[in-house]
């Protein structure tokens, strides 16, 4: 997180110490009196100031006098007070303070204030819709704007939408606007069997199960003070939902094979392309789990329902590369196409465009590239797809072969409910190869 210059005006030594710990990642100046605070404010350079109101022994709320000075200098001023009567709060806002909280629970208060400050600053300087989440569609913009309002809060967010509509991108934008100090940690729940998902999320200790030669830090711990993004949440088993629900509610969990509970203050953003209500009705999603993950629901439409986004997306995704122009007929064909793979398909189209086209792009070239993208997405008739070929060129054939076999093994594990013996006999592979693939899936070397 960005290191901020912060001024704290506080006469209570213990409160100053608490603030010093809470703000340890920032450059902080402390003032014990209103006059010392005034001098530091006048010297400039602070982005935020936290003001206690009652400074010194008297009854007068001296800290209040510093609010107009902070406002005049463009410093984001925050009142932290033992007084939270309506008249005091009103007066502080009248004088130009940006934020006000009652003392107590500083760990949460200070984090939330900084998140609100960063959100305000980000909102002022960047246009999310031009840079991070390109859309001209009024409905989509309204949905994203609404979600951004809640980015600094702890509220869980559920993102719905067809595959490739930008759910992961939106989750990352929300994290970047959250002001949370921790990392953005994403996991695709559909890519793991139940056992592997549990190991990935909760982590495990050495020797927790066969093959666990080393301990592994889970995603829940990795997302401490950050965001845990659960993609394809609809594919999570009921058993896993129960375990995760408990971890979310208690902010505490046991890694596999560990007696010691770990704590993690992660915020949950989840996504699915499935109909959540149908999942609940069918008994595939627990209602209490759904309640816990859907504080705010954002729905992203398929690109076919927001065709005004196609040309801006092509322009944005091609930014930084060579500039191309489309003939009117070429544009017409781009807009006539339904883009079933959504933004992901546009991205691939732009990659192919940049690799093989020059200057003005003809309608025939558009047709040809769209056919290529479609062939890659569907069955191309070729055993090695264009993506696999390029991956092998970039990373070597061994890495490509490993990736291919890992995908096949993962799919076979899914189809067989995680039964390794069935996978071994179905795929006619050795135990060694299976465990090497499992190790790679966990991010370990997995060499044979």
């Amino acid at each position, binding site marked *: 997180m960005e290191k901020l210059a912060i001024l704290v005006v506080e006469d209570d030594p*213990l*409160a100053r110490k608490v603030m010093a710990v809470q703000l340890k990642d920032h450059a902080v100046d402390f003032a014990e009196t209103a006059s010392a605070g005034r001098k530091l404010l006048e010297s400039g350079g602070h982005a935020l100031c936290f003001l206690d109101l*009652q400074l010194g022994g008297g009854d007068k709320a001296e800290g209040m006098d510093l609010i107009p000075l902070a406002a005049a200098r463009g410093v984001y001023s925050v009142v932290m007070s033992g007084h939270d009567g309506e008249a005091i709060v009103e007066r502080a806002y009248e004088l130009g303070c940006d934020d006000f909280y009652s003392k*107590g*629970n500083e*760990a949460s208060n200070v984090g939330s204030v900084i998140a609100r400050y960063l959100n305000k600053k980000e909102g002022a300087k960047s246009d999310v819709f031009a840079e991070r989440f390109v859309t001209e569609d009024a409905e989509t913009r309204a949905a994203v704007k609404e979600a951004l309002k809640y980015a600094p809060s702890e509220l869980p967010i559920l993102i719905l939408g067809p595959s490739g509509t930008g759910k992961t991108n939106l989750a990352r934008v929300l994290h970047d606007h959250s002001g949370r100090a921790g990392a953005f940690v994403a996991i695709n729940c559909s890519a793991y069997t139940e056992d592997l998902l549990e190991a990935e999320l909760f982590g495990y200790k050495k020797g927790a199960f066969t093959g666990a030669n080393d301990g592994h830090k889970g995603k829940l711990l990795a997302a401490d003070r950050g965001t845990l993004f659960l993609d394809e949440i609809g594919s999570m088993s009921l058993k896993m939902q129960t375990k995760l629900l408990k971890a979310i509610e208690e902010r505490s969990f046991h890694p596999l094979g560990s007696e010691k509970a770990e704590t993690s203050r992660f915020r949950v953003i989840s996504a699915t392309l499935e109909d959540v209500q149908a999942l609940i009705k069918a008994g595939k999603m627990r209602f209490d789990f759904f309640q816990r993950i859907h504080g705010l629901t954002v729905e992203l439409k398929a690109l076919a329902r927001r065709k005004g986004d196609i040309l801006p997306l092509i322009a944005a995704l091609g930014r930084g590369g060579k500039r191309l122009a489309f003939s009117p007929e070429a544009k017409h064909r781009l807009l006539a196409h339904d883009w079933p793979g959504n933004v992901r398909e546009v991205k691939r189209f732009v990659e192919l465009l940049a690799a093989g086209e020059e200057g003005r792009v003809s309608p025939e070239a558009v047709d040809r590239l769209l056919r290529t993208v479609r062939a890659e997405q569907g069955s191309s008739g070729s055993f090695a797809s264009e993506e696999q070929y390029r991956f092998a060129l970039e990373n070597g054939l061994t890495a490509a072969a490993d990736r291919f076999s890992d995908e096949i093994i993962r799919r076979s594990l899914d189809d067989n409910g995680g039964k390794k013996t069935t996978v071994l006999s179905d795929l006619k592979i050795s135990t060694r190869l299976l465990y090497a693939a499992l190790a790679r899936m966990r991010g370990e070397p997995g060499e044979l």
Partner: protein
Amino acid sequence: MSLEKLIHDVNSKCSSLKDAAKLLPDASPAEYKELLALMVKQARALADQLAALERAP
């Protein structure tokens, strides 16, 4: 001392004590010692303030 000020002081001082106590589990040994010393001082100051009020006519 006004009762309004007393309410403010009790609230502020107890809030700091509570926040400081929450920091203790993750504090380094030096920080733990420093926090505890400040907490003791804070608690004594509050007790002194209440005692003064008790003595007042």
